[in-house]
């Protein structure tokens, strides 16, 4: 893991909303300060137009853009780009710390599939993660779209990808696995909607995965299918319900959790790179 745990601490235990982003045209790393100023002016202008986030609240918004050199997969990846919106403290007192209102970051972890085909003037950072009010996401997104001719799209996560995630993450070796491996299913089209939470003791889930995975370091679709089929069969044996016919909407493990609406929480720095790599892949397939 090359990422400095201190620098990446801000990523952990926060719910990030995912987007795919097409390559940025003529984005210059050296101009981050300029971009911050421009984005700040843009936000102020949007507020004037009445598109302010909080009506009646006079918020002075400070914009900071920074590069996170460690947050990437290989040297071929672009360094991650972090955007932070804080409210400038009004009080001149000693406790005048700016309050972080919203953060978003662009990254690429082993995003070669995309960057190899892209002309030089483009910067590939296909994954965009946000945390904070939707209205700020919208404003920041608009500015990037205008400035770099890129396109943002919400990244939904299919049940297929969710099952990949749960299989992968259940198999991760952790010093202390404290949380269960949980799968949440939804059965909407009944007379009364039904949600089913299926949580497995992390040791038992890992034991199952270890017997399924044939080659360490490699995961195949077949192995994920076997793992899921085992879980479905165990459930069916007890309840006679076909879980495979229900919609998998959320998976949760000690490593990370993911929701089909494209919301992810990374809980353990140890597997940060692996999680981001998977998400980068999803973002790229949505773009292509």
């Amino acid at each position, binding site marked *: 893991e090359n990422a400095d745990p201190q620098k990446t601490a801000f990523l952990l235990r926060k719910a990030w909303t995912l987007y795919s982003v097409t390559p940025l045209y003529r984005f210059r790393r050296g101009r981050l300060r300029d971009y911050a100023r421009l984005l700040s002016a843009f936000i102020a202008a949007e507020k004037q137009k009445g598109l302010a986030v909080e009506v009646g609240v006079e918020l002075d918004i400070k914009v900071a853009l920074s590069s996170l050199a460690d947050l990437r997969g290989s040297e071929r990846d672009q360094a991650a780009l972090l955007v932070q919106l804080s409210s400038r403290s009004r009080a001149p007192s000693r406790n005048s710390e700016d309050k972080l209102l919203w953060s978003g970051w662009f990254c690429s972890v082993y995003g070669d599939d995309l960057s190899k085909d892209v002309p030089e003037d483009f910067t590939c950072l296909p994954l965009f993660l946000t945390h904070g009010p939707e209205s700020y996401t919208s404003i920041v997104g608009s500015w990037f779209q205008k400035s770099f001719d890129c396109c943002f799209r919400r990244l939904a996560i299919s049940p297929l990808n969710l099952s990949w995630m749960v299989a992968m993450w259940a198999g991760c070796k952790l010093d202390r696995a404290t949380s269960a491996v949980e799968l949440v299913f939804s*059965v909407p089209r*009944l007379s*009364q909607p*039904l949600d*089913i*939470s299926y949580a*497995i003791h992390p040791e*038992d889930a890992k034991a199952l995965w270890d017997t399924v995975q044939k080659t360490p370091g490699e995961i195949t679709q077949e192995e994920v299918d076997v793992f899921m089929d*085992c879980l479905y069969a165990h459930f069916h044996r007890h309840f006679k319900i076909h879980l495979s016919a229900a919609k998998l909407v959320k998976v949760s493990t000690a490593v990370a959790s993911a929701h089909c609406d494209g919301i992810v929480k990374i809980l353990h720095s140890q597997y940060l790179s692996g999680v981001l790599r998977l998400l980068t892949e999803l973002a790229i397939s949505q773009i292509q």
Partner: protein
Amino acid sequence: MDETVAEYIRRTVLKMPRDEIKTMLQTWGFLSEAQLQTLNFHQIKDNISQEVVQLCEENSADIKQAAVLDIIYNHIYQNKRMWSVYQMKKSGEELDCFDITDFKKRFKGRLRSALKNVTITFKEYEDNAIWIRVAWGTPYKKPNQYKPSYVVYHSQTPYVFISASVLKSNLPLLCQALIVASNYHDIREMELRSHSLNSLKDIVFKRYSQNFQTYSPKPLQGQNVEPESADIRIVQENRSEKERIHRLNWELFGGGPQPKLEFAQYKLETMFKSDPKMDVLDKKEPFRCLVKFSSPHLLESLKSLAPAGMADAPLSPLLTCIPHKARNYFKIREKKGLFPESFVSP
């Protein structure tokens, strides 16, 4: 009138929907009809509650009366609270004649001997239900009126429904007082919880339509089977399968409405079994899982799983046993012996 009582009454009135305030105050009966006439119910609730407090001031309301108003609100909005069910046990076969005055005296006596700072209020309702409200304090602090426990006791039954306050430490004392007051010798918590108090009563008092052991081979005449659709794709096989599922559902769940539960939880400590050909996990220890089903109306949604093709019919007894076993929390272990496929739930 005590400041704290005034504030408590004000906040209780604020909780009520505006068009129900008048009825609740009338049920309360503490303010006269003439006083109620002076209230303007067409203003914002803040003002209405202030006016109510004013009137209560005129009548010198104390915490006892305020507590009754709180019971009235919670009786109507009982489904906002989570209720647990407790069952009491008698030691002998004594046929006690239930005396409400004795009950109240013994209950209050038992609680007060252990805890001086406690507010105890009773209200009886038509369906033989005795509602008890207890606000808890400590030896040094007055009772916290905002976190009371509610108990509903049907005197003709051994069942008590409790919506405890956050302070779980008072529960043993509350249980003690109940058995002392009602002349039972033991009380145990059942694994049955829900927001719908009436549904809990339906389940323990067996007031819902149950499955019958002996059944008529055909559904009753006039049963509301799904209307014959003109869809020619539904062939005889599908139709008879549909009818079979429908009949099984009727056998298992009965024809009437199901009690309303919101969840069921199963702690599974059974073995993981798989096809040996699959070459997967073969441990001698249990595959530990926790399964939770949630729905606005759980039993109805379970009932609709087989017809929707999501489950086999008949549905698993682990699910269909919920009402007649009167529980929605289960621990399932493997049954040892001849029939490894069956489960035991202690």
